């Protein structure tokens, strides 16, 4: 079973929920994927012994200028403007390239070949009973999706897979939640929280994945969020009130459930609830 934890708005508690959920169901065989490859941080809480680091490469064009006729076809074809053809020189912008390979197809003199370009790493490790895999994009590399794909290739379907997603509702989020059996959307009862949740709900509904909502810091803000959930008939999975102790543990990289057994119990119940919802 694959459970993804996503949110529209950032900073509402995705990693808080996903790491504590993973640790609360320790008797299960859990595999944890941190797909927030722009700023992975689950490993701060699930302190893994890293066993393997693998580089992630994408393919980008390389032009043989002895063959090139500077006809401009490749530059005209590239939807992402990753190739510039100047009268006597080709300039490639690998960080703009989406690796479609189209430039090499439209080249009539076979001057373009595709070469690997490193964009980040995959880290693999273990913490207690949990297998942790996370991707990390190199600084200056803008493309998260290829790394997320690599992380997800390593899914072990025999396990309970928990996927910590990036925030937002764009391609990296869609890539992260794709193939999940259930999505937990975390939000907070503020105007921003509600605004971004609505977008996330549209995306997850569009992907036809069953989902429910966790309201974090549930005693701040206003009640518009509850009205929205009721109106849309969206399952409210859990409310977590604001608690200074949670914030203190979290900011020290300590999994909160180790010190708050009642919260651990709540996450266990949450897991059972999700199992029931997935079975339906």
């Amino acid at each position, binding site marked *: 079973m694959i459970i993804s934890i996503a949110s529209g708005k950032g900073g509402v508690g995705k990693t808080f929920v996903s790491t504590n959920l993973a640790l609360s169901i320790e008797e299960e065989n859990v595999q944890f994927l941190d797909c927030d490859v722009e700023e992975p941080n689950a490993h701060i809480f699930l302190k893994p012994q890293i066993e393997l680091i693998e580089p992630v490469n994408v393919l980008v064009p390389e032009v043989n200028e002895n063959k090139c006729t500077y006809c*401009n076809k490749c*530059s005209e074809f590239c939807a992402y*403007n990753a190739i510039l*053809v100047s009268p006597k020189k080709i300039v490639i*912008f690998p960080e*703009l390239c989406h690796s479609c390979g189209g430039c090499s197809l439209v080249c009539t003199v076979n001057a373009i070949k595709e070469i690997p370009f490193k964009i980040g790493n995959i880290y693999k490790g273990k913490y207690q009973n949990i297998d942790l895999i996370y991707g990390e994009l190199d600084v200056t590399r803008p493309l998260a999706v290829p790394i997320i794909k690599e992380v997800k290739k390593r899914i072990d379907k025999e396990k309970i897979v928990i996927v910590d997603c990036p925030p937002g509702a764009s391609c990296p989020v869609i890539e992260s939640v794709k193939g999940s059996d259930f999505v937990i959307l975390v939000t907070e009862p503020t105007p921003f929280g509600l605004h971004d949740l609505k977008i996330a709900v549209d995306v997850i509904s569009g992907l036809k994945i069953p989902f429910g909502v966790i309201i974090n810091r549930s005693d701040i803000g206003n009640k518009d969020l509850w009205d929205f959930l009721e109106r849309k008939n969206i399952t409210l999975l859990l409310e977590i009130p604001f608690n200074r102790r949670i914030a203190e543990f979290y900011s020290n990289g300590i999994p909160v459930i180790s010190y708050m057994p009642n919260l651990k119990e709540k996450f266990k119940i949450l897991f059972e609830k999700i199992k029931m919802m997935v079975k339906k």
Partner: protein
Amino acid sequence: MKICLTSTGNNLESFLDPRFGRCNYFVIVDTDTMNFKAIKNDASEARSGAGVKAAQFVINEGVDVLITGDIGPNAKMSFESSNIKIITGIEGSIKEIIENFKKENI
């Protein structure tokens, strides 16, 4: 001499657009005849690589000089391989700028 300016509008009274890759128009002027053309910048809507796309356009037009507010790193790299002279940090109306350019004030 053929010069290209980034412009907010499509005539010589328009102001220089300080952006390069996402400017509204390119105004290309022949400083000898003062004939000009204004072309809508296709790159302004690009999801990414607007600077490269705009640079490709300017290179294809075969201009000698580009006058704009500022250019980004990708556009800068794009022009390094060309002989186009880049003048940045300029403000004012297209007409004024061309006159100043002709008087060699910029």
